[in-house]
């Protein structure tokens, strides 16, 4: 165990700690059992005084948002000078751990689905006046691993705290920025106005961050790179270039082009010209994407450099290289795919290589 709490410790006569989950930049996260309502929940408690300062206020803000694509804040209380936040438990991991560490990039079908779900969650929060301010892959939770059955935005509360640290660091200059883990992690997804006028950030900052995240999923790269150099690139907001593999296959090009248009609309320097979250939900509603299940398997043979078979637990699945997004697999490559009934074999589409 890590952090201030121990296994089996009961907080407030109600929440029994089961295990330590993780620590974000600001807080320790535990899995706990709600003894009254007999359910598992996530219990969060601040890591340091700067997190304590805003913990209560951020819980109040986060609790306003009620949407299937947002992790729900359930409760907040203070006991013996320690603050606790109770949140819906999401068993899985974040977008960074579950997806970006496993694949180089994500096919446009799944990007469209994730984009649509996140836009819906962000729209719900904007409707109740809540700005996330720190949307990034580690703040997006993915249920059931590579199956990506559901997506939930988390840490709305933390965002407001992170902002204070951000504002301080940005106003202090680059030396402070590079020392702050929170700031360095958030930088690649930060809108230009967050850097230039951090105290006047509004809803469009979330839209920019969504665009930046979707750029990363689709291409495997951060739109403006990493490190401190991104500050200058973001402020200039020169539209990032999309690698050619995204559009060079007929199977993907139509949807990819639509996604590129949407992503670029989010990454406009002038906050007022970015789409609203509602508009984004509507645009995403025109994208044609399947919600079929994803599987993981191993390529067992490729013939004539044009087609092959994937083995997993079920009978072998046929695939055509036209269905591969990005780099082609070789014999023995682990791949991530959806499949459709076929005879003599089911057909995989799309297919993406695992790292």
């Amino acid at each position, binding site marked *: 165990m890590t952090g201030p709490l121990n296994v089996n410790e009961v907080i407030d006569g109600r929440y029994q700690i089961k295990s330590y989950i993780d620590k974000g930049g600001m807080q320790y996260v535990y899995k706990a059992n709600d003894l*009254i*309502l*007999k*359910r598992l929940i996530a219990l969060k408690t601040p890591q340091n005084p700067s997190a304590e300062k805003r913990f209560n206020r951020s*819980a*109040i803000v986060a*609790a*306003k948002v*009620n*949407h*299937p694509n947002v992790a*729900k*804040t*359930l*409760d*907040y*209380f203070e006991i013996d000078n320690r603050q606790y936040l109770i949140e819906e438990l999401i068993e899985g991991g974040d977008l960074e751990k579950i997806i970006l560490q496993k694949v180089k990039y994500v096919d446009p*079908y799944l990007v469209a689905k994730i984009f*649509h779900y996140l836009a*819906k969650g962000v729209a*719900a929060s904007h*409707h109740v006046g809540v700005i996330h301010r720190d949307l990034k892959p580690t703040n997006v939770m993915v249920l059931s691993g590579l199956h990506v059955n559901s997506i939930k935005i988390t840490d709305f509360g933390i965002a407001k705290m992170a902002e204070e640290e951000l504002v301080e660091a940005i106003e202090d200059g680059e030396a402070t920025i590079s020392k702050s883990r929170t700031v360095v992690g958030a930088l690649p997804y930060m809108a230009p106005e967050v850097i230039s006028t951090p105290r006047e950030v509004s809803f469009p900052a979330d839209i920019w961050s969504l665009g930046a995240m979707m750029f990363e999923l689709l291409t495997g790269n951060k739109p403006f790179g990493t490190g401190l150099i991104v500050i200058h690139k973001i402020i200039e907001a020169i539209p990032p270039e999309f690698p050619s593999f995204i559009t060079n296959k*007929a*199977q993907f*090009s*139509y*949807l990819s082009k639509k996604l590129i248009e949407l992503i670029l609309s989010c990454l406009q320097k002038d906050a007022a010209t970015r789409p609203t979250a*509602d508009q984004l*939900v*509507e645009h995403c*509603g*025109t*994208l*044609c*994407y*399947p*919600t*079929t299940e994803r599987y993981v398997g191993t390529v067992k043979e490729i013939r004539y450099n044009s*087609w092959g078979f994937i083995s997993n637990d079920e009978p072998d699945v046929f695939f*055509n290289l*036209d269905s591969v997004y990005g780099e082609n697999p070789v014999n023995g490559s682990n791949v991530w795919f959806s499949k*459709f*009934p*076929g*005879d*003599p074999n089911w*057909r995989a*589409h799309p297919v993406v290589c695992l790292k």
Partner: protein
Amino acid sequence: MLDLPKRYVPNGASDSGGFGSVIYCKDEHLDRPVAIKFIREDSEKHRLMDELNALMLLRSKHVVQVYDIVKGESDSIGIVEEYIDGDDLSNSPIPKTSYEYYLKTLWQIASGIADIHGAEVIHRDIKPNNMKLDKEGIVKIYDFGLSRDEGAKAVTKGFKGTFGFAAPELIASGFVAFSRAVDTYAFGATAIVLSGLGLPDALQKIPPQPLPDNFMSTLPFKLTPDLASLITACLAPNPNDRPLMTHVRDLLSRHLLHNKHQALAVHNNKPLVLNSSKRTISLRFSDVGEIVIEYDGFRFYVSAVSGEVLINNQAVSVGKEIPKSCVVALGGSHRRANERQFITFDVSNPEVVL
């Protein structure tokens, strides 16, 4: 004496009704208004807790949120709920202002009930007075204090509910078995009332009677035949003849999303887009097989087929709806690879805009 946790500070307002009593408070911890509804804990405490737990997991836009449970006086418990500052749907002119608003209201109610049923809970007292419109004009269903789990224990002693909205199977003496179809019936009655027509005489009889033939044509709004028969089916005397609320929701959204869908087929390395401005595509592979897919504003379906055509490896017939995501094969499985063509077909997932 009521010993409420200190975080809940009563604002002085309260209410009572058949279900028990409700007090309005401010939750000091999360700085928000809440309604705490006290109901008697009956012998089925576990069932009640299971059900409240299910409702607490619900993330529906159209159902008032249940936040927590507190202990009430002696044998009662308090359900801490989201407080909605808004008009009761029975007082709202909005559904009556246009056909579109009417359908949008019905769709929101159907979505809320479908979500409640998805959590395996029965509401049991669906009616316009138990729905509110919030500041953004979103319908929120509340007052599921009487609700019972579905299943073997779904029986009630005597009648608790609202005449005019209660299904015929509920209006009986003694132990009455019921299912989620009681909510479907009440939805049907609600749909008629919200049109501005008032409760039909047939539904006010005890027990309620079937609607007269062609009753739906007397509604202020001219419903399409499928929607008229949908609402009639909701009011079917036999609970087994009533549709699932997911079906009701989906049929309503089909109308609200009229002409809003897109479909994308990739054939011979070319994207083919189907939508309201391009309603037909033909997928053909020499003389092996051909399929014509059409969009009628509601669905994508097979309008003509000839030769060897399979969708997700199933035979194809004219009129059949195309699955939301599928592979179309031109050429049967007896053919060699170069004598077959495969086309991916995907449709968009538009949302109802409220």
